[in-house]
């Protein structure tokens, strides 16, 4: 069973959402609804499932309903219709008391503008989730210190958030989310407010933490590079509709519609396509010149081995972890993969 299941969720903002719902279900567009009824469609029939331990990235422009969607999972926003279930429990069935327990122990959240408490020190901020659970100060300070060290902020624990830089503040936000040790982490444009260098730093840190902790992460961003870097699966939202869900490669290679295509147009493909995706498998490699070969690991991105290939004017031999030959890449495959028009033909379904 999936960790998080979202089924046919609709969210309409306005005075009488339930009256407008049938119209939306009948397929009226967002603009029509707004003109006729004055209601805003936040989410339009969104269904997706997220497996345990994966990072699901939800992407879209501002106003596409990303932040609305993430708030449905911990029910900061109630859906107009539809089911949100986490580990098999329908979130909508929880009463106030159970909802609070659910938020305390099942998931934690990181916010775009950090959402730190300005009147609390870093250590108090990090320990807030434990504080509301009723833990004693000594206990929670111990856990908080561990997490502060994990995000590399030791020495700052008695500062106030305003004394820290943006990147450091978001580390506090991350440590706060880690402190309650929940399985699920919701990250609402967590790195969007940071400058590019710090952002990529934070992304690396998140990837490192994730490889250790194996949490289920629901990540929201409007930055395609970020979503390709972090996501095991990516969902693209447009005007409240989920237009495409798939792996990063799927999104780049087979954009579902013009909207997604516009998104992926300017992506540096060499940075997101792995060797194993474009290689010619070893069993059908007759006719490839094997005299001059460069060894490439199957999980390497094109831009990592491209310079080597170009300099030595060689073909690539793709190997897996044990060193067994999996396939070959020649100039032909490379040029296909890196040219926009031939995108779809270049891809061979990964085994």
């Amino acid at each position: 069973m999936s960790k998080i299941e979202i089924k046919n969720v609709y969210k309409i903002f306005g005075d009488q959402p339930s009256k407008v719902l049938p119209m939306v279900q009948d397929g009226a567009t967002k603009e029509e609804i707004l003109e006729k009824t004055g209601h805003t469609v936040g989410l339009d029939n969104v269904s997706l499932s997220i497996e345990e331990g994966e990072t699901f990235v939800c992407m879209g422009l501002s106003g596409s309903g990303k932040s609305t969607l993430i708030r449905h999972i911990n029910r900061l926003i109630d859906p107009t219709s539809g089911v949100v279930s986490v580990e098999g429990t329908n979130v909508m069935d929880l009463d106030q008391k159970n909802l609070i327990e659910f938020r305390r122990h099942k998931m934690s959240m990181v916010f775009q503008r950090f959402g730190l408490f300005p009147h609390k020190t870093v250590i108090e901020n990090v320990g807030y989730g434990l504080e509301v659970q009723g833990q004693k100060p000594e206990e929670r300070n111990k856990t908080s210190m561990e997490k502060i060290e994990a995000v590399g902020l030791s020495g700052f624990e008695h500062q106030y958030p305003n004394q820290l830089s943006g990147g450091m503040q978001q580390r506090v936000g991350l440590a706060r989310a880690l402190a309650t040790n929940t399985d699920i982490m919701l990250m609402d444009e967590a790195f969007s407010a940071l400058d590019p260098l710090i952002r990529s730093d934070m992304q690396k840190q998140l990837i490192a933490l994730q490889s250790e902790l194996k949490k289920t992460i629901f990540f929201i961003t409007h930055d395609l590079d970020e979503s390709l870097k972090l996501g095991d699966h990516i969902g693209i939202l447009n005007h409240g509709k989920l237009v495409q869900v798939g792996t990063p490669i799927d999104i780049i290679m087979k954009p579902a519609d013009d909207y997604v295509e516009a998104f992926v147009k300017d992506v540096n493909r060499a940075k997101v396509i792995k060797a194993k995706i474009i290689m010619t498998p070893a069993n059908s490699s007759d006719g490839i010149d094997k005299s001059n070969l460069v060894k490439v690991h199957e999980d390497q991105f094109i831009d990592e081995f491209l310079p080597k290939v170009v300099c030595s004017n060689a073909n690539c031999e793709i190997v897996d972890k044990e060193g067994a030959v999996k396939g070959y890449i020649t100039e032909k495959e490379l040029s296909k993969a890196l040219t926009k028009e031939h995108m779809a033909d270049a891809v061979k379904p990964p085994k």
Partner: protein
Amino acid sequence: MEKYKKFIKPFIYSSIFIFFIIISYRSAKPRYKPDHFTDIFKDFSWLGNWPKWLDFPLMQPLNSGFDWLIVKYGLFFEGINNFLLGLYTTMKDSIVGLPWPIVIAIVIFITYFASGKKTNTTIMVAFCTFFLGFLSPRYWDKCIMTTCIVVIGMLLCIVVGIPIGIAMARNKRVRNALLPVLDLMQTIPSFCYLIPGILLFGLGAVPAIIAIFVYAVPPLIRLTDLGIRLVDKEVIEASEAFGANKKQTLWGVQIPLALPNIMQGINQCTMMSLAMVVIASMIGTRGIGDEVLLGLQQLNVGMATEAGIAIVLLAIIFDRITQSYGEKIQERTQVKKKI
């Protein structure tokens, strides 16, 4: 049909208005009423005549309602009266009984710690306190009386006003119901509060305290409400997302972050209390206000000015203490970046 929908409401309202004009013509006195209907358009004097029978007198029912209130709940008001009067007398007597150097020492002590150990503010307040005594020895006891009334009125405001402000911030219906009441409380001239006060509690300190409460509590309620609503939405969301219940969010996040605004409200409340207590001298409340009144009655400019200066000094003392306490809290919640 759809097209004419927007004309329906204006049509109804204007026909009601015309109906009233017709009534005013019909009920006009004979001497205003034209003989022939064509005269209506030549002689407009009927338009200047209000229909007398439409007059709705508020005075009579209010008076009888008030009488009924006194008869029925007299005991209740007497209870309030005795409580407030007892509080006021004990407080006043104990401070008046103290030697003046000790009183000044207490004021300095309070200022020093309320302002977060700011020496400048403390020296200024101490100087103002000394000067009250130097101005005229008579003023000392009177200032203490005024202070006691202001402090009791303020406490009443805080005890009632802050919870109401919180309730308003958390519930839209409560806010919609209370906002017009607050507007009313602030627009009715402050003198009007004194009259029911006298009828219910007699002359003296208690009606002044009640009038202070009615006059000074609206800004405190408004600023508490505003302060809580102004707390960053994402911070509240963060608190909720980590599973804080409503009580934890209120006490752990909303109130601490609203404190600068609430303190501003208390400061406003104090200043308005002081203004009110001076006016209250007209209904026989003892205090620094009677000196002004006396000066006014005797056309003694010097006396009135002297008392006026004393009031200003008192106001500075109150303002500095409450303001600096607010600033101290603000510093803690919004720490400036140290470079």
